[in-house]
């Protein structure tokens, strides 16, 4: 076990401050004052937009350098299957289980593992 570095302590404290800073003040203030409706409207799009911005490059650019649209890209193949499973079942657990199985199976089939 290696110990914490200063960089790690600063990172954790900073992450803690911004995370609590998003969750707590809204809980404490809203209901006592009114926020503009536009703020709520914009917030609705935050989860899908942020998560998509993380997910799409991981599917299309597995090496991080260039776009790979090919059956050899197991991330893309399994990602499409997982999106279909999620759309049909709305089940997070099924999506994870089937997506992982297709990912590992596909890599085995095309000989990456």
């Amino acid at each position: 076990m290696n110990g914490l570095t200063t960089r790690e302590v600063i990172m954790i404290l900073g992450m803690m401050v911004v995370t609590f800073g998003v969750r707590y003040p809204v809980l404490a203030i809203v209901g006592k004052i009114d926020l503009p409706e536009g703020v709520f409207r914009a917030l609705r799009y935050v989860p899908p937009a942020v998560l998509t911005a993380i997910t799409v490059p991981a599917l299309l650019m597995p090496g991080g350098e260039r776009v790979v649209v090919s059956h050899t890209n197991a991330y893309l193949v399994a990602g499409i299957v997982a999106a279909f499973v999620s759309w049909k079942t709305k089940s997070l657990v099924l999506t994870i289980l089937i997506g992982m199985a297709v990912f590992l199976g596909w890599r085995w089939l095309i000989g990456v593992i």
Partner: protein
Amino acid sequence: MPPSISTRRSEFLAGARATLPLILGAIPFGIIYGAVAVANGLSPAAAQGMSLFVFAGSAQFIAAGLVAEGLPVGLIILTTFVVNLRHALYAASLAPFMKHLPQRWLIPLGFWLTDESYAATIARYNAPDDSPYKHWFYFGSAAVMYTNWQICTLIGILAGQQIPDPQGWGLDFAMVVTFIGIIVPLVKNRPALVSVIVAGMVSVLANGLPNKLGLMAAALLGIAAGVLAEIAWPVADQLAPAEENA
């Protein structure tokens, strides 16, 4: 199922019970986070410390990925802020029910706010009975989520130290597939579809920008596109919180 005569204890236990099915998704997530964090070069103490003090699954995942890319700490913190902005929506939706609570309740309940506890608790608050102890339900839900997250992180850290190359096992895909399972149910109208298409396209086109600015640009343009699309195609339930995000 709300208890017929609710007490602090019965609400706490009901909250814990209601959250048990939801941790099914959080268990692999926590284990994989722990494994990926140490594989990416975080110390075990930092990986566990993040779970203890930040307690935000997807943000922790992303931070672990950014550590591997050697990003400056300030940008990791900024990215955490953007990724966690969705919690402001949950907090805003819970706040009217919690107006009467003192700070000694609001501070821990704010810290413990997660997708899962939000989904369980808002359903309890919306139940027709007027139990004065519904915040104990939230407390029970949060206690289960927090405890589970700590244990799963620890298991992941220990497993990650045994596996030399978790990427080779496809552990990195587990996060991607989890996010897919969260995103798809959120895309339930045209503005949301426009938002994710724009975010996805920009994320690839702007991927070459330094310091993960492409992620920021994609997120912000995706949000803007959703808001603009909503003007073209108004959404009936536009202020209803996204409760399926569990």
